[in-house]
């Protein structure tokens, strides 16, 4: 495509057209926080439409992990791959979602590097709406990631005893937790300078968080101190809940744990993020 040719062909700016467009501008009343957040969510969806490559982490990553762990370690860890899949799949679902949340920070940091972030901050809208909107758009990514993992699981022989209701409930809970965890990455992206450093730091947090948990193996075989770490890791509780719901039990206490940690994540990182956002240089 030759942009220069197109420009030559395009009509020059005419004074009359400019005048009428300036005079015609209306001054509608400002929309509320829900509408502006949803509008920023729409922007996130448009970006997925125009840059579908960005869904690689959502699609390839969970597929790779499910296949690798099931067939590499399944036999050794649980006696058979089929049996291990029943244990692993809910865990992979958790890991996939938690990994996808990292993308939030990387995307936001890219916006900051460009001037578009300044434009959004100079608009008379509810200040958190660009951030909330981006997180709402991410819910679509989590849903896509979850659908892929569950479909793949079903094809490979995963049979959730909790049925459709259990599966849907666990996905809803995952979305809630992921939305809340994203505020951590949002905060990081306002502190770190480049998208690469955001990705680097996120990885350093992510790997221990997902591996030192009960996602892949039952912690019973771990040394005591490690079990203690696994026990306080919120990802462990999330995996326990998702596993329970999918297989037909309702671990009420654990659900409470997950909801409380979700609220805490937003209560701590939300306000810090907003202060950083307001004072961003």
């Amino acid at each position, binding site marked *: 495509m030759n942009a220069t040719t197109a420009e030559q062909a395009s009509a020059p700016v005419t004074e009359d057209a400019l005048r009428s467009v300036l005079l015609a501008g209306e001054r509608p009343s400002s929309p509320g926080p829900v*509408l502006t957040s949803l509008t920023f969510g729409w922007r996130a969806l448009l970006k997925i439409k*125009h*840059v579908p490559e960005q869904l690689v982490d959502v699609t390839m990553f969970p597929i790779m992990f499910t296949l690798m762990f099931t067939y590499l370690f399944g036999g050794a860890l649980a006696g058979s791959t089929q049996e291990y899949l029943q244990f692993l799949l809910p865990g992979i679902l958790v890991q996939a979602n938690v990994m996808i949340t990292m993308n939030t920070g990387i995307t936001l940091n890219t916006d900051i590097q460009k001037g578009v972030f300044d*434009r959004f901050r100079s608009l008379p809208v509810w200040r958190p709406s660009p951030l909330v909107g981006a997180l709402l758009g991410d819910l679509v990514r989590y849903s896509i990631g979850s659908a892929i993992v569950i479909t793949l699981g079903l094809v490979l022989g995963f049979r959730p005893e909790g049925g459709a209701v259990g599966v849907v409930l666990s996905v809803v809970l995952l979305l809630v937790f992921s939305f809340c965890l994203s505020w951590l990455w949002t905060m990081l992206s306002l502190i770190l300078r480049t998208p690469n450093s955001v990705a680097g730091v996120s990885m350093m947090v992510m790997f221990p968080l997902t591996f030192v948990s009960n996602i892949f193996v039952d912690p019973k075989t771990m040394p005591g101190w490690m079990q203690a770490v696994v026990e306080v890791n919120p990802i462990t509780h999330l995996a326990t809940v998702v596993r329970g719901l999918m297989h037909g039990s309702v671990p009420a206490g654990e659900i409470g744990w997950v909801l409380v940690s979700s609220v805490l994540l937003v209560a701590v990182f939300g306000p810090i993020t907003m202060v950083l956002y307001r004072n961003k240089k």
Partner: protein
Amino acid sequence: MGKFAIETRGLKKSFGTTHAVAGVDLAVSAGGVYGVLGPNGAGKTTTIRMLATLLRPDAGEAQVLGYDVVRDAQAVRSRVGLTGQFASVDEDLTGVENLLLLARLLGYSRRRGRQRATDLLDAFGLAEAADRQVKKYSGGMHRRIDIAASLVVTPELIFLDEPTTGLDPRSRNQVWEIVRGMVAEGTTVLLTTQYLDEADQLADRIAVIDHGKVIAEGSSGELKASVGAGSLHVRLRAPEQRAEAERVLAGVLEVPAEPSADPAALSARISDPERVARALAELFRSGIDVTEFALGQPSLDEVFLTLTGHAAEETPEEDAA
């Protein structure tokens, strides 16, 4: 609203040990173009970002359209448009999607917003590129969509940060036309530039800033007058007579004459226009053939040099030193 569209007193902002803005006082009347002229790193962007409520000043105060930029930030935001120095729309989205996004955020209904986006694209000569991703636009088109994005709701005041830096002359002229059109409709424009001729062409008043401080302020005529009445430019038939001519001119005008880039030309500042005739007569008497002469107002380049002791368009490295 007070008398001024923008009024600042002692505005300051530092980044670590860099005093990006070191006490700026501005008084910008409503209507017309106000130019902020300064080299790279002078503090233009930092000043604009404070005025547009994106940065909190360390000290001093600023009122924009009568509202304090810190206390009434939201009131300022709803009345001004900002076109930043760098890409200020989402390059992944198409032109029409960008404008529709902003229209929706500013309260337009979906239908009216789409209409507004189309009208703006038409007015800015971007109708054909409406459905193309902005990252595929040429530099000039990109700048026009950046400006159009600030006009979704016609602002009372618009900030344009270096709107023509890096543009080819044709695109630069288009931006100038847009600026003149906005002013004709009553919008106040504050624009920053590194180009002296741009400030000269567009701005009613100019603040020259350097190292975070306003070092001169006035209309371009006033700024020029402040460095003297102008200069006499003379072109000789024989370049080898230039040294002799320099001596003659310096004698009559009582200021040093400067050789120009053209080997046959020279110029001298003049404080008293009456001496010009005498100087020319003296050249004739000394047997020096003059093929051309002109009495020029000083250029803004000279103004800048006089005010700052260094040229305006130097490289950032030199500036940092």
